[in-house]
Structures are given as structure tokens and as C-alpha cells.
């Protein structure tokens, strides 16, 4: 079994991290692979030195735009647009580092928070100055990340603003932007309908920047090294390096810092010791982009190219499906997880995830009815965008991509 059991989606064992051999690492720097960097080690790397932008921190989004930094939480949204959108609202504002890594197959945010918490805090404080925020909050769910961040805050000493830590129970939807604001505001960690979006009215009803922790770490790196250096790796539209979680049927599963623009197959070969014999496809986006056939071995790691190929990079978690993994069984297990994990706030999500689960269960049991495959294909097209958050879109992507995967799914 190369995926986590659907009813125990949050795993605790953290794999070791490593950097791609062809890059000068920015996040997985020497010494951080399997140990946390303390304040002295971080200061030696320049962390917390943002003197180049101290005179005019509000101009920093221009640097982010030149660098082409895109969000690392899943959607790949350009960071500078998000920062400017928040800065355009009435102040004072709020910034949140989102480390609630809800994707079941992703470990990269947990690795970053437990090994380089100071780089994340550096990025958070940079964002606070950049958008004019008087509250800076680190939003977390896994106890080991909260311990690491609290230790780093204590080690750092007083700052303005002083970073706060807000913890929630780990669920997928808890990391969704409107759920983040609702929880910090004292409510349940569940999504709300949009509008308003957090950049308009978020924490305390104020314009709120919610940024994935890895995005903030890259922003901190860019503040010291500049946009041109950032673009030395990656492609024109997906610049820089990124953290990925490679797992499943490969020699060395783990968290890796890799240049964007390599093919999926190259990445597994170059950092994860190669794919096992008999790999027939992948789970993409840590499962939110669904299944992808073996032809995606040649797809380039880039938000736009993956989207054009009907898949997605998401949070950068890719699980290889091996000879022992029946794609229909995998789809049925993940569909069951979606039905369990739905917040059940929206009728369409409650009913849609259950219908997808039941249909896959029938097909996996060899008990499929006429029209089941057509139903999955239809839900894959009609359900995205109908819930208050994008959770249902993930289940719909599973339905759509499982049908496209062919073989055992469509021939039952």
C-alpha cells in the first residue's frame, strides 16, 4: 500500500529532506536536512536581515513580481497580487502564515516548520512590514510544528509585531483561507461562503494576507538574494525551486527541494532513487489533483503545464502508484476519505462526496451498475466550484481523472 489508509490520513513519521543535486539549495540548506537550524545558524545565513528593503518595505511586492513567486499552498497564485490586494485595503492589516498542511500525502510544510522555523518567521515579519500589518499569526495543526515555532519565537526575542501561534485540530478544510480566519476569530475551523474574501475582510474583519509557510520562506530568501537570483532556477512561468513530497512506489520517498521545470520522471530518478518497476501512474497534488496516468512521467513540474495536461501541482505531493496498487481500489479509498472529511456544511458537498464514494465502492467491488462511469465523468465536470470551498473540487477531480485513467476504471 503506497497511500495512507484513508481513515488515518495524518501520518506522523516525517521523512528526511534533501536538495536536488543540481541546485544550490535555498530551503534545504546543508545542516538542515534532518536537524533544526537554530537562531545562530540562521543569522549566519542572513536570516532576519532585510536591510535591503527596510527603507521602503511597501515596495517589496515589486520584487516579488520580478521574481515571479507563486503561492506554494496549492493554487499557485502570484504572491505579489495577493500582497498588493491586502495592502490596498484599509489598515491596520493582519498577516497569517498558513502551516496547516491538510493534504494527506504532503509533509513539506511540516519539514519546513520543524527544520527552518526562523526562515518562515522572517518571511512572516517581512510580509507584516510589506502590507502594513500589526498582527502576525502562525496557523498550525501538528504539535511538532507548534513546538518548533514557539521555540523559535522565544529564541528570537521581542519583535514588532510579535508573532502569535494559533493551533487547530488537523483536518483538510481547516487550512482553507476562510476557515483560517473563522478559527482565529474564535469560531470553528470551517470555510465560509465568499465574498467576502480574507483580503477584504478576514481576521478581526480586517484585510488579511494568508500565505503558505513555504511561500513566505521563499519571500524571505528573495529579500536577500533578489529576483534575478530567484529566477536562476525554474521556468519563466514557474520560477525558482519548490519543496515536493515524493512518495509511493520509489526507492527513497521524502521531502525534496527541486527546481521547477523538471519532468515528474526526472524528479523521481534524480532525487528519489528512481521509480519502482511497474509504476503505472501517480496521485497528484497530495491528492487534490487526482490520478494521472504513466504518460505524466513526461509532464513538466509547472503549474500551467500540469493544468493544461488536466492535472495539477497543488502542494507538490506526488505519489507513484506501483504494480500492487489497483487504481480503482486507490480511487475508492480516497473517495471514502473525501466523504468522511467533508465538513458537511454544503448540501452539494455532503451529497456529492457520498455519491462519488458509493459509485467507486461499487466499481471496486466488481458490482458497478450501467451508467456509473458516465456519472463519475459528469460529476467531474459539474461539481467543481459548487461548494463554499474547493474541497468538493478535489473529489470531482478524482472522479474525472479516474475515468481518464482508463484501464480497470472504465472497463468494468
Amino acid at each position, binding site marked *: 500500500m503506497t497511500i495512507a489508509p484513508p481513515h488515518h490520513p495524518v501520518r506522523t513519521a516525517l521523512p528526511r529532506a534533501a536538495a536536488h543535486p543540481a541546485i544550490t539549495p535555498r530551503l534545504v540548506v546543508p545542516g538542515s536536512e534532518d536537524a533544526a537550524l537554530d537562531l545562530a545558524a540562521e543569522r549566519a545565513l542572513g536570516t532576519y536581515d532585510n536591510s535591503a528593503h527596510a527603507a521602503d518595505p511597501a515596495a517589496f511586492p515589486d520584487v516579488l513580481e520580478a521574481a515571479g513567486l507563486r503561492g506554494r499552498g496549492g493554487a499557485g497564485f502570484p504572491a505579489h497580487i495577493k500582497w498588493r490586494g491586502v495592502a490596498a485595503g484599509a489598515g491596520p492589516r493582519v498577516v497569517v502564515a498558513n502551516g496547516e498542511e491538510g493534504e494527506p500525502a504532503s509533509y513539506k510544510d511540516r519539514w519546513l516548520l520543524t527544520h527552518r522555523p526562523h526562515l518562515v518567521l522572517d518571511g512572516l515579519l517581512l510580509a507584516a512590514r510589506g502590507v502594513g500589518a500589526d498582527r502576525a499569526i502562525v496557523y498550525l495543526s501538528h504539535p511538532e510544528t507548534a513546538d518548533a515555532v514557539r521555540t523559535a519565537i522565544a529564541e528570537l526575542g521581542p519583535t514588532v509585531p510579535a508573532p502569535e501561534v494559533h493551533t487547530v485540530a488537523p483536518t483538510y478544510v481547516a487550512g482553507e483561507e476562510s476557515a483560517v480566519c473563522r478559527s482565529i476569530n474564535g469560531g470553528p475551523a470551517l*470555510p*465560509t*461562503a465568499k*465574498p467576502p474574501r480574507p483580503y477584504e475582510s478576514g481576521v478581526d474583519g480586517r484585510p488579511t494576507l494568508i500565505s503558505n509557510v513555504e511561500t513566505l520562506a521563499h519571500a524571505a530568501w528573495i529579500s536577500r538574494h533578489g529576483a534575478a537570483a530567484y529566477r536562476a532556477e525554474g521556468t519563466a512561468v514557474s520560477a525558482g525551486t519548490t519543496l515536493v513530497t515524493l512518495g509511493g512506489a520509489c526507492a527513497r520517498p521524502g521531502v525534496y527541494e527541486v527546481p521547477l521545470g523538471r519532468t515528474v520522471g526526472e524528479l523521481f530518478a534524480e532525487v528519489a532513487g528512481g521509480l519502482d518497476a511497474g509504476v503505472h501512474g501517480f496521485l497528484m497534488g497530495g491528492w487534490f489533483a487526482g490520478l494521472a496516468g504513466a504518460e505524466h512521467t513526461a509532464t513538466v513540474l509547472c503549474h500551467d503545464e500540469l493544468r493544461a495536461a488536466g492535472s495539477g501541482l497543488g502542494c507538490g505531493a506526488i505519489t507513484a502508484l506501483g504494480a500492487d496498487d489497483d487504481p480503482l481500489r486507490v480511487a475508492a479509498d480516497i473517495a471514502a476519505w473525501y466523504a468522511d472529511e467533508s465538513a458537511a456544511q*454544503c*448540501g*452539494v458537498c455532503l*451529497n456529492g462526496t457520498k455519491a462519488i464514494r458509493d459509485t467507486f465502492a461499487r466499481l471496486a467491488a466488481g458490482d458497478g451498475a450501467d451508467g456509473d462511469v458516465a456519472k463519475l465523468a459528469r460529476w467531474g465536470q459539474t461539481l467543481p466550484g459548487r461548494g*463554499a470551498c474547493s474541497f468538493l473540487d478535489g473529489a470531482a477531480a478524482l472522479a474525472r481523472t479516474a475515468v481518464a485513467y482508463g484501464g480497470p476504471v472504465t472497463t468494468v
Partner: protein
Amino acid sequence: MKAVVDATKCNAYGTCAEICPSVFTLDEWGYAAVAGDGTVPADAVESARAAVADCPEKAITLTAA
């Protein structure tokens, strides 16, 4: 003018799609969503306002955009 359905409030009464079918559609479980991007055609403004008023869950809002 655009219509927005709060999917967390919709309880599948279907009133909106009955009153203003050019703006509101129902899925196979009866829950409402807006057609396209929710833009309300000029000849449907009155019925869209009626759909807002008659929604038992107060799940619909109209925005200027």
C-alpha cells in the same frame, strides 16, 4: 448585478430556480447554484429579487458587481 448563493445555507428548497430559472440552477440533489458567473440579465432582475426575498434560508445575495 450578480447573484451569489451561500452553499452552506442552501437547503434545497428549490424556490429560486422556480422563480428565476435563468439565474438559478439546481443540482441532482436539489441544491442551488448560479448559472455561469451569476450575472443577472436585465429582464430577470425582478424575479432574482423575488428569489432573494422568498428563499427560506436567506441564502442568496445580490451584489452590484
